[in-house]
């Protein structure tokens, strides 16, 4: 009986088989600025299917058998890399990892040479993390493989933004008109940038908040180059009635470069605390891309509290990345 009801919930009217290609146009995932809302929707739906696989005892399907995924990380990030790795393994892809020390970037070792080597090794999808903004864009112009940007400089982190959106959808009915507040070092945050693109495309009401030295430039009149969002330095105003509050990792070197007087002052002015959250919507969820500097950008009681969905974000990351692998593996042949 329950099952019957579940079928109804999914809605049989929407059940016509639909070629994803009609919606999906991407060979690479570099940023979300060029995603349509239909494409984001497709990723969300596909992620939901992948999420179900993750709840099974055997979390493995044969979909990408014979495909090779290579991770190329110019910055260490065990979390992100293992999320991609797990996603690839769950889809039965072959996976190999390449870590390049960030010093070889400054030595001017050619990114393109490295990518050509990977292609010779048969990479179908290259997952790339790089300290310089735009490096994945450069890569995409010079290799046949699909490039997935796993974070580049201050530019973009599309898979993180998609998993953030999926996590929001798990708790909220729809992104449209959702009040989302992102707090912290916005200007240097690729996570914030990609979230601003995806959330505004889906109709969310986005507010960014932080000290003025860490807010992006040109936001008074950003269109057509960047989405219009609310900008404020007042954290209480930013949190008021918010449905989602997202913290960002504060790089501690921002103090040395004179953007902040001290970490202590930052925490005092911009930490997401229980008290500040009490002004948000009752059902507010608290997010953070991790790793968290506890009691700097977010109070530890909040990070571990009942409003926090930070741990779910990690699981959802695997599902989103499986979905993207699936969509790219289908899409990339169709040029």
């Amino acid at each position, binding site marked *: 009986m329950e099952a019957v009801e579940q079928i109804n919930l999914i809605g049989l009217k929407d059940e016509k088989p639909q070629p994803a290609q009609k919606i999906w146009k991407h060979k690479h995932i570099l940023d979300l600025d060029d995603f349509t809302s239909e494409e984001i929707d497709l990723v969300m739906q596909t992620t939901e299917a992948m999420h179900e696989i993750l709840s099974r005892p055997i979390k493995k399907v044969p979909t990408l058998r014979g495909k090779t995924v290579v991770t190329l990380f110019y910055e260490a990030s065990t979390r992100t890399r293992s999320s991609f790795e797990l996603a690839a393994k769950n889809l039965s892809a072959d996976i190999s990892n390449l870590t390049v020390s960030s010093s070889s970037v400054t030595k001017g070792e050619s990114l393109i040479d490295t990518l050509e080597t990977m292609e010779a090794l048969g990479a179908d999808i290259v997952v790339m993390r790089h300290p310089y*903004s*735009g*490096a994945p864009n450069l890569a995409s112009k010079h290799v046949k493989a699909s490039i997935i940007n796993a974070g580049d*400089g201050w*530019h973009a982190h599309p898979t993180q933004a998609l998993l953030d959106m999926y996590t929001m959808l798990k708790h909220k009915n729809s992104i449209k008109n959702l009040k989302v507040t992102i707090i912290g070092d916005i200007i240097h945050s690729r996570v914030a940038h990609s979230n601003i693109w995806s959330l505004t495309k889906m109709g969310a009401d986005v507010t960014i908040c932080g000290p003025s030295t860490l807010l992006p*430039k*040109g936001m008074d009149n950003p269109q057509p*180059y960047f989405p219009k969002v609310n900008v404020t330095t007042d954290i209480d105003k930013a949190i008021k009635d918010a449905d989602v509050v997202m913290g960002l990792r504060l790089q501690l070197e921002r103090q040395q470069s004179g953007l902040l007087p001290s970490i202590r002052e930052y925490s005092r002015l911009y930490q997401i605390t229980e008290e500040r959250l009490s002004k948000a919507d009752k059902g507010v969820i608290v997010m953070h891309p991790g790793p968290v500097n506890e009691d700097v950008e977010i109070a530890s009681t909040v990070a571990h509290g009942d409003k926090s969905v930070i741990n779910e974000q990690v699981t959802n990351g695997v599902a989103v990345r499986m979905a993207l692998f699936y969509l790219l593996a289908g899409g990339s042949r169709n040029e």
Partner: protein
Amino acid sequence: MNKSMLIKNGRILDPAQDLAITGDLLITDGKIKEIAPDVKNIPADCTTLDAKGMVVCPGFVDFHCHLRQPGFEEKETIATGSKAAAKGGFTTICCMPNTEPALDNKATIDFIKATSASEACIRVLPIGCITKGRKGLELADMGELAETGVVALSDDGSTIADSRIMKQALEYSLIFGLPISDHCEDAMLSNGGQINEGIIATRLGLRGIPNAAEENVIARDIALAKLTGARIHICHISTEGSVELIRNAKKDGVRITAEVTPHHLTMDEEMVLDYDTNAKVNPPLRTKKDIAALISGLKDGTIDIIATDHAPHTENDKLCEFAVAPFGISGFETALGSLMKLVHNGDIEIHLLLSKLTVVPSKIIGSKFGKLGTLNQGATADITIFDPDVEWTVDTKEFYSKGKNTPLNGHKLKGKVMATIFNGKIVYKDNSVKLGV
């Protein structure tokens, strides 16, 4: 070599003498002999060039370019750079001293002069360093440089950060009457910036260079020029604020001149949207508002000249992540085509454009190197002939410059150099131009 040449039926324009007629121009013995609606006394062995529908004007003078020799011959040489300049309609080019070694003494200047004499197809005039090794610490031997024959002094590529050194450089330059040409950039403020600070830098996640990084130093230089009474020349200005500062300084009687590049006049920051390293240039491409201010500065005389800042790099130099790519655009071969857009759009008159490319830069250089930038009778026959209306597509494969680094590859331009005559000799000719006898 023919001793005489007749350019027939051209639209002859010479801002130096306010000349605009349609007619013929006769060259004999490397000098301008006669300009008339219909030149009658034609020597027997005269070569003729039919310039119907074309503009005939003084050869362009570029006060700011980089020829990369010595030290970076893979990017450009005096031979390839001068050939590219000739193709762009330039007959006199002034090369910046940021070579390796830098042009900060007699030996290096002599090297440029000797190499130019044997390898350049046009006139190459060196600019010497302000400080030894361009380090901004000790003054270069300006007297020696002046005697050897530099047209100006500059540490282009960097600013002399120490205002005391800059003041002393200006004071000392008074002995020789040479302009100090300054690349104005407060490096502490630009702080490794890549592109214009603003929404596009936000979108691309690149560090921005604020306008104030340029304006800061211009304001300082104005104060120092006023204090010392020396000549200051401001390189490649890019912002509305810079135009305003210089406009006021001129009103104030400061001995200041300023230049703007074709790319800052015709391209805005949108050109970098796809992380195109070929549009990475310093100062960065700015906004449409800045461009409008630069055009108004050209019109009211605040900006004296247009200089290319031709900055060639190899393809490999630019084939990398945006943050590690060097700054610079290869500018000689697209300069006229880009600038003519301003004329076709009705932004500026063709006479004004030509004056900024001929007579005014010649005045800044002075008479030491001959009577340049004019078609006066008896002047050296440095002549550019261009078709103002022909449309063409930029193809960097056809560049004479080793530097293919331009964001204009594949773009359509309207206006093309058809022939360049240096010292009475044709040093560049488009394939479509036929000569007669």
